[in-house]
């Protein structure tokens, strides 16, 4: 008799069961019951946002180089666990070729974003030549806590493509995983748990998008939302709830397997621009300004 794994949630670096005590069956494409996943609840979202808020400042405060190393380490560990992801994807009904492509592209995307950690600032930031005697510069800064509803078409790639640009930019994230295909997300959580990403920086919940998203989009302590390939009605509802605290809402419709589904703009989508002024003393007849 086979032991069916129950995939738990990932909140604050721990793997709790949902506080609601519910689970749901994860089925393969052919309808076979292959595992159980937690049916996350509003309170799980609440708990996740709380720890995400707490973890965000220290994550953003790590040096850019350090964040780069940490994300690159994730790529290494994904590579090491490639077999497990392939098995899961195949169990869900993907053929080996498409499963391999999904995992390999995901690993590549990880490497890609790892490399961005200490570079996007130079491209998104500016030194501005103001007319008064002031040094004036603009730098990108993480928005804070980003709520993510992972792409519901892909098991791993969409998830990676949405989470990493927010993460590399110093945000913490609360992710609602692909409802039907949650396994890879939770296996990714296992990767995270043994990585140097501090607990609480990435939080992953499984269950009903419809049930959990309103809590996330209405949450006053979530700064932004990353949505992908959702029904327009769901997106509009989330956008409406997001207005309450002026969340920045990104809704992607791109196919994440495309090469242009990665890039600087996905990082800048979750960055604020902060502009700082400071006087320049005029010395020896020097004119102010840079």
């Amino acid at each position, binding site marked *: 008799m086979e032991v069916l794994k129950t995939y738990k949630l990932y909140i604050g670096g721990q793997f709790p069961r949902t506080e609601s005590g519910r689970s749901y069956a994860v089925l393969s494409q052919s309808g076979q019951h292959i595992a159980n996943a937690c049916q996350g609840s509003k309170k799980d979202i609440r708990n996740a946002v709380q720890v995400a808020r707490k973890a965000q400042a220290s994550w953003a405060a790590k040096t850019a180089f350090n964040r780069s190393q940490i994300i690159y380490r994730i790529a290494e560990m994904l590579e090491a666990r490639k077999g497990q992801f392939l098995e899961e994807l195949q169990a869900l009904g993907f053929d080996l070729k498409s499963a391999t492509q999904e995992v390999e592209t995901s690993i590549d995307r990880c490497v890609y974003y790892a490399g961005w950690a200490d570079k996007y600032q130079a491209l998104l930031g500016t030194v501005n030549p*103001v007319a008064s005697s002031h040094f004036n510069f603009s730098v990108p800064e993480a928005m804070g806590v980003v709520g993510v509803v992972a792409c519901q078409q892909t098991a791993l790639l969409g998830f990676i493509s949405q989470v990493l640009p927010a993460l590399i930019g110093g945000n913490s994230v609360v992710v609602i995983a692909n409802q039907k295909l949650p396994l890879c997300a939770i296996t990714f959580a296992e990767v995270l748990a043994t990585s140097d990403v501090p607990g609480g920086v990435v939080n992953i919940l499984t269950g009903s998008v419809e049930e959990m998203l309103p809590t996330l989009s209405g949450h006053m302590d979530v700064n932004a939302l990353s949505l992908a390939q959702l029904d327009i009605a769901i997106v509009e509802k989330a956008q409406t709830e997001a207005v309450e*605290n*002026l969340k920045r809402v990104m809704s992607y419709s791109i196919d994440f397997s495309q090469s242009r589904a990665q890039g600087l703009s996905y990082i800048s989508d979750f960055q604020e621009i902060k502009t700082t*002024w400071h006087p320049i003393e005029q010395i020896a007849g020097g004119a102010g300004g840079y």
Partner: protein
Amino acid sequence: MMSQTNWNLEPSMESAAQIQLQAQYELFIDGKWQAPLSNTYYDNVNPADESHLARIAWSNAADVDLAVRAARSAYENVWSKLSGAERGKYLFRIARLMQEKAKELAILETLDGGKPIRESRDIDIPLACNHFFYYAGWADKLQEAFPGQQVAALGVAGQITPWNFPLLMLAWKVAPALACGNTVVLKPAETTSLTALKFAEICQEAGLPAGVVNIVTGYGDSGAALVAHPDVNKIAFTGSTAVGKQIQKACIATNKKLTLELGGKSANIILEDAPIDQAVEGVINSIFFNQGHVCCAGSRLFVQESIAERVLEKLKFRLQSIYVGNPLDKNTDIGAINSKKQLETIERYIQLGLEEGAEIYQPTCELPSAGYYCKPTLFTDVAQSARIVQEEIFGPVLTIQTFRTMEEVVQKANNTPYGLAAGVWTDKGARIFGLSQQLKAGVIWANTYNKFDPASPFGGYKESGFGREGGLHGLRAYLKFPN
């Protein structure tokens, strides 16, 4: 030895006689002045003395529709076909014409909105001109601005500007929109439309193709019609957070790109090692600039305990040489409150502060008998939870709190739904960067306050809005990106 006292400046009035106001202003649509289909006008008042200035057209949805159609047609047939370089030339030409009419614009701005002529003359109008000059130069460099990304114009931009910096906010919106290849329908604030209407004349004089800039005056309902119009591709709004939220809601389920510049309750922090006299002057600039009608006003002052008494003493002394009065007087520091409604709001908050048990200080100065005026006001003994500390007053009212540690002040400064700006005063460079990193705000003024420049991006975090205006970042708001 000879002794002198009571040396007082005499009023030095800028002459409003050189301004030719029309009795009635129509809508500026498709390069022409058109009577509103609404057939409705409203009275525009000079807040300095409550005198009647002009009748202004009050556009309805049909008028707005006409303006959007004109903008669409100009976009499709003319503006989108011009090269960036040609668009830039129009902007340069507009900038130059604005400079040439700077004095007239300054007087108009002061008559219409109540701001001191010194500010309209030295700040608003020059900055507005410079904004056009700045973005004129970007028009043919958009691909270089965003390498590797095929950026494109959005189409028709609907823009709604506030009454606190009428022409400057127009410039912040119209200049980048046109530079990026969009056409514009602008709805200025109902109390301050005159410089926008003058700007329409400048567009005509510059030979700007008809329909590229359209100006529809009116109240909030005119703005709402613009936001609701299905053929508008972009909405840019500066104003209150409450209205910003309504607009954000209205833009859902549309493809309208949106930028919002909303309210604030910005912290201005003075540390004990600050250059104290310049910091005190910075406080004056932070809260009394433009009667405090500034979204990024440093309305919450935090002073380190060890120097708090001294700072307060200096502030009170400094207030004695702040002149409150007729905004056309070149010596006026604080002019008229923009409208009766706003004056009532401010007065309500001052009353609330008293009810909340705060200690008030106002200098002894006489206010003009007619018009809307408010004395500069300091509140001490205020709690973080007091409403006058939490809510945006949008007037010359400062709350003063003390703090001991930097951790404490960072926490209190960020303890607000807003995040537009913050000020930091300290002599220690390392501390400036440490604090500016911690403060959640889009603009940090270190050892200065309320400085603006076309090259410098401006915009907020959290409920202060999203998007940036000014600088390279300001272009993003008016361009379509591949993703």
